[in-house]
């Protein structure tokens, strides 16, 4: 609600400094292929992809307060949509991107039908069920298009105006630009009527209801938006690996996304990015100890929940 109180419009200088810092960090990220070797470029690309995925989980879990423990489904719908449309139907990769987003968003809106009637732990269990159904369906190769347990290989490279983005660096830039767009979207979400309605609902659904907030609509929109963004990440994921298989979208992947949001800081963009880095980048650095990833992260999760239940980088207080 703009201009209600003139006293609040003067920004404090630290806030202004941090606003300038984020775009700078993003621009600095663009130089990763120039200054780091190729293994780092692929780590940075995976960071961007998982960051989009974790931010999309945050729309439902962090901002919506809905315990979505099946988010890998939407990530998978996007990845499979790109893989199938590209390999079976010959669509160019970038043409599959809007289709992947829309299909994943539609899946989110559809599943929101039963899910938004549920609360808390019940909703969580139902999302786990959807995740199991999705993985089983992909494994059973319906219509011969998903490739069963082996999945789909040979996904093409995206091309822009006739130039193939075949190099590791070019793909990284694509991922990084998509991350930038999603970050802008998340910022605008905070200021939108939808974002505010989400905050009210999360705090007190009954009170929000007495004031004219349509709970089902807002929750369904959250699922559609979160799922659509996850579908976007799924396309990037399919392109990055040039292969998709059911194993990438199993329940434990959903748990990881859930944990990234909770540990990083629900509703906080920096928190979710930090959580993504801790979960997906740090293990790459200590690749030799990769099998300890869940062990270390498990201990870190317990420590954070006990010592810092609001997350590592919590959401700062926002105006309504």
């Amino acid at each position: 609600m703009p201009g209600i109180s003139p006293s609040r419009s003067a920004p404090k200088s630290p806030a202004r400094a941090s606003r300038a810092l984020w775009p700078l960090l993003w621009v600095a990220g663009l130089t990763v292929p120039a200054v780091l070797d190729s293994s780092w470029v692929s780590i940075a690309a995976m960071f961007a992809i998982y960051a989009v995925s974790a931010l999309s989980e945050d729309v439902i879990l962090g901002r919506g307060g809905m315990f979505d423990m099946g988010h890998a489904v939407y990530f998978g719908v996007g990845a499979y949509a790109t893989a199938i449309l590209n390999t079976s139907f010959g669509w160019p990769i970038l043409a599959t991107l809007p289709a992947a987003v829309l299909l994943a968003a539609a899946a989110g809106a559809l599943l929101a039908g039963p899910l938004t009637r549920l609360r808390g732990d019940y909703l969580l269990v139902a999302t786990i069920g959807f995740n199991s159904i999705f993985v089983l369906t992909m494994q059973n190769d319906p219509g011969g298009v998903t490739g069963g347990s082996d999945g789909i290989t040979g996904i093409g490279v995206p091309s822009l105006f006739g130039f193939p983005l075949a190099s590791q660096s070019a793909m990284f830039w694509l991922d990084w630009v998509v991350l930038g767009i999603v970050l802008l979207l998340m910022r605008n979400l905070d200021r939108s009527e939808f974002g505010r309605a989400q905050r009210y609902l999360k705090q007190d659904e009954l009170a929000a209801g007495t004031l004219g907030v349509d709970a089902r609509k807002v929750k369904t929109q959250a699922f559609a938006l979160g799922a659509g963004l996850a579908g976007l990440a799924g396309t990037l994921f399919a392109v990055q690996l040039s292969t998709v298989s059911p194993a990438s979208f199993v329940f434990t992947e959903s748990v990881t996304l859930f944990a990234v949001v909770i540990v990083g800081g629900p509703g906080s963009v920096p928190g979710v990015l930090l959580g993504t880095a801790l979960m997906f980048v740090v293990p790459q650095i200590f690749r030799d100890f990769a099998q300890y990833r869940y062990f270390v992260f498990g201990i870190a999760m317990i420590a954070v929940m006990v010592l810092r239940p609001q997350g590592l980088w919590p959401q700062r207080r926002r105006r309504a």
Partner: protein
Amino acid sequence: MSLLVIEDLSVAYGQIEALRGVSLTVESGEVVAILGANGAGKTTLMRAISGLLPKRRGAVRFDGTDITRAPADRIVCLGIAQSPEGRRVFGTLKVEENLALGGFTRSAHEIRQGLETVFGMFPRLAERRDQLAGTLSGGEQQMLAIGRALLARPKLLLLDEPSLGLAPIMVQSIFRSLREIAASGVTVLIVEQNVRSALKLADRGYVLEVGRIVHEDSAARLLASPEVQAAYLGKAHT
């Protein structure tokens, strides 16, 4: 035409019927009180009117529109706002933000007007406009909950136990403000355990007992009636 007409309304939680065939009317400009003990179904009635609970049987009409099956957000848009039991202010939002939220269905211009009106009516809220609502006293939170409901510009204001848990002096102050709100032309349906204050404010009253309306009369006659005095005002039958 009555502003609010409720006919044979039943609401159930699973097997338990909390309201059993309640009928009542509220005329435009009236203040109507619903009296009753704990568990009589008062809050259930308020939530059912607001569309927060599904109705098992019966009909609710507001301003000529059937709202029996209407969703809560549409009911607010039609002109019914509620200050819920226990106040339910958003503790982590500032006072002014809580009020602005009350105008969720309204334009920015209407919100600005509404803020002025409410700050005029409750100067203590104006003083604390930048304070987090969670740091207010109970009475101030109640003012905020009422103010927030007024921001929706209701034709009918539902008040669920506005005196709950408040010091007597604060109860007086809240009821003074309610008189002012009623005088400004807003129709009020109020649920209260504080029977004396409610009946002094109201034009008419209904007595609800275990889900049924058992009395209906003018507020003055209810206040004088031996049954009401015995049951709610602590006086023995004479």
